[in-house]
């Protein structure tokens, strides 16, 4: 009898303690964050981890304050599979719809990851009036252009990571430096046969030609291609000095290994180059990926001191997942949750129109700089100065480490050339 009484008392004490330590927030109905992500791929799983980490941190602090009531976030993930070759866009749309109708997502964060799928999901988001913050993968400028062109219809769509046009600007800033320093003038472009990469490659070609670069070739490889020798030999024959790469398929590792094995005297400069983004790339290529450059789109996806929050996030992520932030979509997915939290708290409601209005007023000094959305296009405002806007990150593999080389304001080193380039 005494034992039963004691147990009852313990349960009561625990219940009181839980109530005092934020348990009340956990008792409230959670705010469901739906994440349509291609979870088998880097841009999917890193986004999921980023969102999860932010949610855990926010919930540990009591949750989201909505008009005096604290409510926790809850994550629901559905695999869109949109990064897998041959999977139709409709699969991603089904995932989005299932998150909205079946999982009762209040908001969407993450994908769809492939640009084609993200664009196709926009009418669905307006149909259900679901606020969505795109955080990974999709780089097409058409996304925010569509919001700007038809604001009333697509106002629920936001994007908190960089986009292709901005990436192009960052790349040309580096190309300009390389031209000034080493006299480079020959550029070869290799892209994957997907919407964002094809589009970006064409833009690069046009801009490069306008800027006086000699574009020695543009090769578009189908997703799943496993031999790049002919493209690389074309680059070599045309005295190419920079190979600009736009690929998120795993086979891009073959391209880089071939580049090394064939000792092609040109610098591999990836814009989107998923294989080279991951910390495990060095071991996976036995160091053959040294000198490869790639754009991880936002600071925080590679180590730097962009803001005081950058390394704090970097270390928290590494501690939580046992691996460093791996690439595009990590820091942006993490920050999207914080931006959403603040918008909901300001709105004091989950009503989509009110949250949209408050998201437009977002102004946070986040992991990758000052985060604000363009009120017309809902694209995060970029900058090369973290005090002014969202900064990107271009890294180079140097002696087994990912060294941020751009923008200068957060750079941890300078671009190095492979010895066989003879510069």
């Amino acid at each position, binding site marked *: 009898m005494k034992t039963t009484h004691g147990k009852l008392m313990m349960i009561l004490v625990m219940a009181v303690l839980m109530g005092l330590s934020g348990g009340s927030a956990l008792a409230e109905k959670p705010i469901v964050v739906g994440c349509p992500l291609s979870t088998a791929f880097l841009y999917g799983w890193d986004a999921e981890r980023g969102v999860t980490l932010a949610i855990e941190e926010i919930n540990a602090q009591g949750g989201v304050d909505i008009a005096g009531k604290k409510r926790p976030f809850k994550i629901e993930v559905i695999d869109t599979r949109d990064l897998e070759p041959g999977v139709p866009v409709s699969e991603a749309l089904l995932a989005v719809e299932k998150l909205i109708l079946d999982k009762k997502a209040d908001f969407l964060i993450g994908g769809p990851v492939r640009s084609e799928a993200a664009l196709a999901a926009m009418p669905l988001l307006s149909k259900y009036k679901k606020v969505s913050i795109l955080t990974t993968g999709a780089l097409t400028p058409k996304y925010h252009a569509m919001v700007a062109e038809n604001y009333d219809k697509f106002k629920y769509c936001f994007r908190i990571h960089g986009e292709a046009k901005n990436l192009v600007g960052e790349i040309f800033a580096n190309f300009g430096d390389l031209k000034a320093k080493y006299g480079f003038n020959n550029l070869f472009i290799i892209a994957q046969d997907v919407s964002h990469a094809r589009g970006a490659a064409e833009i690069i070609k046009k801009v490069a030609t306008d800027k006086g670069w000699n574009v020695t070739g543009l090769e578009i490889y189908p997703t*799943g291609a496993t*031999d790049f020798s002919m493209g690389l030999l074309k680059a070599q024959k045309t005295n190419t000095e920079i190979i600009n790469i736009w690929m998120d398929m*795993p*086979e*891009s*590792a*073959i391209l880089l290994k071939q580049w090394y094995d*064939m000792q092609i005297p040109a610098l591999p400069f990836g814009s989107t180059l998923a294989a080279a983004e991951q910390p495990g790339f060095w071991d*996976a290529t036995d160091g053959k990926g040294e000198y490869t450059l790639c754009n991880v789109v936002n600071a925080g996806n590679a180590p730097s001191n962009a803001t005081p929050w950058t390394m704090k996030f970097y270390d928290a992520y590494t501690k939580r997942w046992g691996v460093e932030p791996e690439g595009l979509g990590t820091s942006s997915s993490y920050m999207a949750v914080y931006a959403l939290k603040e918008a909901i708290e300001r709105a004091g409601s989950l009503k989509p129109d009110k949250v949209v209005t408050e998201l437009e007023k977002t102004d946070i000094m986040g992991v990758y700089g000052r985060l604000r959305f363009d009120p017309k296009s809902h694209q995060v405002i970029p900058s090369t100065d973290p005090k002014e806007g969202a900064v990107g990150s271009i890294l180079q593999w140097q002696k087994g480490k990912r060294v941020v080389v751009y923008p200068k304001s957060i750079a941890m080193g300078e671009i190095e050339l492979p010895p066989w380039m003879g510069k």
Partner: protein
Amino acid sequence: MEILIYGTINSVALALYALGFALVYGICRLPNFAHGALYVLSGFIAWTMINTFGSNLLVAVVATLLVTGIIGAVIYRLFLIRVRGMEISEIIASYAIALAILEGLRWGGFKGMTYTLPVFIEGSVTIGGISVDYQRILVVVVGAALVAFLWLFTHYTRVGLALRGMAQDERAALMLGIDSDMMAVVAMGMGSMLAAFAAILLLPLGNIVVESGYNVLILAIAVCIVGGIGSWMGAVLAAFLIGFAQILTVVYLGSHYQMMVALLAIILTLILKPSGLFGQQKELEERV
């Protein structure tokens, strides 16, 4: 020169993808749609041997060949034997096994682009002004040796002759005392070992990813259809045809048409000569 060198490498790679598929179909008329999945699985087995158990490359290679061969034999003995002779069911069952293997690997955490196997020989050499790495040269040499070995095996060993007997006429082989089920198990085991062989040679050139299982299957089917399903010599010839066509396409038309070559080859073959270059299966109907 580069067309000759990289065309040959590409062709041998295609032949390696397809040999196991062609062998299994040729002997027991089983379209093994789990072939690509076995290719990926063997890559991960080798990776686990090297990185988790710390074994050296040679031990990992031998163990991978054996384990994959046994897995293939078990797949036949446990599952495919029940649908033997029903081609649609064989396709559905083997494809289901492929999905189970590939999705199981993904579920088990084998995702991402950081899994790779070490090359056998580091470095590269310049041939006629074209730089080629030793691993690709090894692919060609070992690929050629493998074809020679298969020819010798099927012509001069008891098991090989039994397999050929099965391939030519299963009923007649039965009458001669050849255990057709046992030979089918052997064929499936050998076909799986060939998939593992291809994986061990080709995966060090890139990385091991689950999705490549589907690609390997498509390429293997394309090669076998063009060469004539069931004829492994036809498969070798077709691999050279498609391999060089792909390289020529990249050089003269554009790299993004590269994948279309294999699919176009299937369509053209099915229109012009459905039995393929060396296939005998439908020749009578074609003549009629």
